């Protein structure tokens, strides 16, 4: 019976000043709503950026970094007849650089047997000039296993014309980035001439065009088969420069990359390392969200603190009389703290509702259509976790803001009040 009477008093007092209670509640409500809205939107932006970027980036990228070995020097092997001599070669000139991986098919087979790995796509890449009539453009030609590439980057969905498989059914087929195709003004079926850095020239037939939604890719990249690149460069079929890996679990990229790099002795980079801007951008947006949300909730907390302080100042006589009638300091604390908590919980509930409504509204606002963005609406994510967090924050804020005035109320000396 003890709790109900305290709550009865608390409830009646709360209802007897509806306006004040409502205003305090609105403060919490807006704080939480903005928290939900901001975090849903920011996480949506993060997710969108991650998705678009990752669509063009492998989880792990294995390649042979340019790293000239200066241990072998002609001068040294000539002069090393006398072991007492120390040979110093100043500013040596690099001799041969190998960009390809040694024994790539062994590495590929081994990667495929690794449990964390989902897809392995070997690549033989080179700089090329694309020639069509008088137009000459610099770009990158990637020789790939088109099926593996399709699985890793979901190429099929990114094709503007043609299909990934058309590469195999066309003699010396090539898939061009849409931007590149537009600049060359070629369409599917046209023949274009490619020139390798070494000067070799080969003609390819356009089998399709693709768009990743990023000009950095679409304006320079073209796909052909592994053997197409190997022929252009005059290399044998072991010539593979990079291996791209898609993992089963994206979050394992960092640790797995280190392991693979150590295992095969080649440069092994995870997507976070190659694209620090994604992580940095996410972090900045997250920080901003938290700072703004916490500020809003703190302001709402001060609102509650002020209102409860005012209420308690105006209720000094009631507190004294309750104490005289046998309510302890703890009862009084309970009465006033429960009022703050009711304000907080109701504010949190309505805030979650409003936050959801705002987020939903935002997710229906059409995104201004640019040339390459694939976004139709503003990106918003809906996650239960954010709502739980928002509710917890709201209740915590009101608790902290309510407990101080309530404790003050609990410590009121009834004699001092009754005497005056």
């Amino acid at each position, binding site marked *: *019976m*003890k709790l*109900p*009477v305290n709550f*009865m*008093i608390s409830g*009646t*007092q709360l*209802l*007897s000043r509806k306006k004040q209670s409502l205003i305090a509640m609105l403060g919490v409500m807006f704080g939480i709503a903005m928290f939900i809205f901001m975090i849903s939107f920011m996480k949506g932006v993060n997710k969108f950026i991650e998705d678009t970027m990752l669509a063009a980036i492998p989880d792990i990228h294995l390649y042979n970094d340019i790293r000239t070995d200066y241990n072998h020097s002609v001068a040294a092997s000539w002069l090393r007849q006398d072991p007492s001599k120390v040979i110093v070669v100043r500013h040596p000139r690099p001799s041969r650089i190998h960009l390809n991986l040694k024994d790539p098919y062994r590495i590929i087979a081994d990667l495929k047997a690794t449990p964390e790995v989902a897809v392995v796509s070997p690549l033989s890449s080179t700089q090329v000039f694309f020639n069509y009539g008088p137009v000459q453009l610099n770009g990158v030609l990637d020789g790939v296993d088109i099926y593996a590439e399709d699985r890793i980057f979901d190429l099929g969905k990114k094709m503007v014309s043609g299909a990934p498989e058309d590469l195999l059914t066309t003699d010396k087929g090539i898939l061009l980035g849409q931007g590149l195709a537009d600049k060359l003004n070629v369409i599917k079926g046209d023949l274009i001439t490619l020139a390798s850095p070494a000067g070799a020239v080969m003609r390819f037939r356009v089998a399709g065009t693709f768009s990743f939604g990023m000009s950095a890719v679409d304006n320079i990249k073209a796909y052909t088969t592994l053997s197409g690149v190997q022929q252009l460069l005059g290399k044998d079929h072991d010539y593979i420069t990079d291996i791209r890996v898609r993992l089963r679990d994206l979050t394992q990229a960092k640790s797995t990359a280190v392991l693979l790099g150590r295992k095969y002795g080649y440069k092994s980079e995870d997507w976070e390392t190659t694209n620090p801007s994604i992580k940095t951008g996410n972090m900045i947006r997250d920080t901003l969200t938290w700072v703004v949300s916490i500020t809003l909730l703190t302001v709402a907390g001060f609102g509650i603190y002020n209102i409860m302080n005012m209420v308690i100042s105006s209720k000094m*006589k*009631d507190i*004294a*009389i*309750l*104490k*005289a*009638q*046998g*309510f*302890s*300091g*703890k*009862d009084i604390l309970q009465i006033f703290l429960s009022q703050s908590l009711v304000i907080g919980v109701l504010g949190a509930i309505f805030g979650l509702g409003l936050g959801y409504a705002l987020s939903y509204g935002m997710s229906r606002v059409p995104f201004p259509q640019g040339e390459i963005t694939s976004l139709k609406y503003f990106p918003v994510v809906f996650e239960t976790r954010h709502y739980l967090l928002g509710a917890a924050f709201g209740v915590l804020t009101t608790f902290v803001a309510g407990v101080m005035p309530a404790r003050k109320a609990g410590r009121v000396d*009834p*004699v001092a009040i*009754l*005497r005056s």
Partner: protein
Amino acid sequence: MNTPILQAQHLDKFFPGPEPFQVLKDITLSIGKGEFITIIGKSGCGKSSLLYLLSTLDTDYKGNLSINGTRVTGLGERALSRFRNEHIGFVFQFHYLLPEFTVLQNIMIPALRLGKLSREAIEAQAMTKMKEMGIDDIASKPSGKLSGGQQQRVAIARALINNPGIIMADEPTGNLDSINTKIVFDIFHALSRQGNTILAVTHDRDFAAHSDRIIEMVDGRITAKHSQ
């Protein structure tokens, strides 16, 4: 005199300050069950201080105090709250009802706090008390909208709801007009006749004249006890 319900021995109280002021000096007092006692004296003589001290609201004193056979000196805040709730009924000069609540709720709150009876039983008791005071017709009115005399009667009903061992009143008629003063007088006399123990502080000699015993205070000391 029959069994004492309240016994105070050698109570001293100081108001702190640069020069501590002794407001109560060696008060020894015993109140028997069913007695109606009034404390009179000029303002500033310490009679209100004594009442707050005897009512356990003020714990900052020297000496010994027992009520209903329990030594209340030295009890903790929560134990004292519980004790006041069960054994002491309060009536103040400024009735101090909770303005958001109805008359009935105001009267029921101390009993709900005690929690010995069901809500229904408490409500029935509250209605009985209100009938005795002649205020049962305003049971559902918000207490903020009553006249002073009505409010004081509600306050008395509230003081009685837990059937306390002792009723303590601080200037219960101090803020009332003559008609309402008369009504409150009559209620106190009736309560006294029913066997309630009453301790009232007053400066109204008419009111005091009808009590069983008058304790007169001057400068923090009891100077005279008149039995009537």
